[in-house]
């Protein structure tokens, strides 16, 4: 591993660098998602991806699942918010075509923090007596060694192969500004590799100014960066641009069936490299 971030031409090159079968950590839709790379993964016909929602999913997972790129999903939820259930995800769960690891938001954060700290596990309160925990043989019911009769669940560390997100900006040293979206910091720390698309690559250093440094992931944790304007589309870039609600509603309608989803792909994803 080289310590300095690489600069790639576009999201397609990032998608090419993410191997089939990778454990791929993705942010929630209220943090910036690299939808442009998600589409590139569909175009390159990625297979057997294991998706980790940090902590929940929407369009990213639904599109990858519909396109047949996904073997397994670990997440606290998959939702389209006011547009209802995520159609390709829901269909795949009912048909049993993906392995489902249901979990809960803080368990994902804690398991990533375990990898961030290089410890094999993290204890977490709650969880006991839930069917979420009952269906996770990889979680262990243990005890608090500092008290009598105090059961607590031990979560094994999760170390993603890849973290992928979008950010407002990066500098030419490979530092990436993410602002308050610090789940991206934990994800980058916990993951073997981290790829980001950014709205723009700026001159100067994000670390030199204490104001920007406070919201910056140092290049040390960044494998590669590609510039991609409107890289979140049709999702929002918080404080940047709004979601394309009409397009999201169109997706939600078309993806109700596999046929509709396939024609969505034909219309908006496949062969559309040039439009990215």
């Amino acid at each position, binding site marked *: 591993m080289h310590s300095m971030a690489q600069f790639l031409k576009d999201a397609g090159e990032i998608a090419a660098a993410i191997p089939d079968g990778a454990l791929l950590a993705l942010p929630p839709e209220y943090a910036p998602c690299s939808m442009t790379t998600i589409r590139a993964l569909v175009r390159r016909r990625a297979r057997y991806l294991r998706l980790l929602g940090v*902590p929940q999913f929407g369009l990213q997972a639904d599109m990858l699942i519909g396109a047949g790129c996904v073997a397994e999903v670990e997440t606290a939820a998959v939702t389209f918010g006011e547009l209802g259930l995520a159609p390709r995800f829901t269909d795949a769960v009912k048909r049993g075509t993906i392995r489902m690891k249901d979990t809960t938001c803080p368990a994902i954060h804690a398991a990533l923090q375990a990898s961030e700290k290089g410890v094999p596990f993290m204890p977490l309160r709650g969880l006991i007596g839930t069917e979420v925990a009952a269906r996770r043989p990889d979680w262990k019911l243990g005890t608090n060694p500092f008290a009598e009769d105090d059961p607590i669940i031990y979560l094994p560390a999760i170390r993603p192969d890849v973290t992928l997100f979008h950010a407002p900006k990066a500098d030419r040293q490979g530092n990436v500004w993410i602002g308050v979206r610090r789940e991206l910091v934990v994800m980058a720390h916990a993951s073997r590799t981290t790829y980001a698309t950014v709205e723009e690559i700026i001159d100067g250093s994000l670390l030199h100014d204490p104001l920007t440094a406070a919201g910056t992931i140092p290049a040390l944790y960044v494998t590669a960066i590609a510039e991609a304007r409107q890289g979140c589309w049709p999702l929002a870039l918080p404080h940047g641009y709004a979601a394309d609600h009409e397009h999201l509603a169109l997706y939600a309608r078309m993806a109700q069936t596999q046929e509709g989803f396939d024609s969505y792909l034909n219309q908006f994803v496949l062969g559309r490299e040039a439009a990215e």
Partner: protein
Amino acid sequence: MKDVRTEEIMIAAITRMLLGLRNVAVGASSPIPGSAALLARAVGGGQPTVSLLGNSAAITFTDGARELFDCAAQGRIDAFFLGGAQIDGEANINLVYIGDPDHPKARFPGSFGSSYLYFIVPRVILFREEHTPRTLVKKVDFISAPGTSPENVYRPGGPYALVTGRCVFSFDPEKKRFRLESVHPGHDVDEIIRETGFGFDLPLTGSVPATPPPPPDWLVLMRGPVAAEIARVYPAFAQKLFAA
């Protein structure tokens, strides 16, 4: 003033449960509790503080998605809200599967943070507008989070009330039973019994009061600044409810 709608009755009922609290957080898919929290803040002159998940225009947390859970664990969040595809008479909630989880008849979004926050936050308010034997069931198909826990399980939090489109229940963790507290205007106790899949207690006094409607000044706030702010996260909800 237009007619008061069911959602507005629910919002007002939840708002009353939040007055005087310090900090309230609102999770995903919670437009009615979100409106109630914003109304409580408006009525309380800025108190409780409100953190609305997904409202990236109003930053309240600065340590990432884990901060809500850590903050709750530190005892700083007084109230939270959970819905449920199913809620049963022991206040167990199901946010995931109908039928066998390995071959489900239906799949809902997922448990979100419920499997944790239901244990941790002192005042968890359950809400479900659809009040039918299909949603309020004898026994949930899947326990996203249990209503009660054995004595030795660390559990500073748990269910406080259940607010539906027909009534308000409180919850007694000792008896593991809901108690009907009030029935919304236009509904009655017989209907509640008929439409509820689980048994519950009636008030000790015998008579069941009506859920008070929102006072006019609350309605003004609700349909004005609260509607405007909730629309940032729930545009369709705000459009349907407040702009009708």
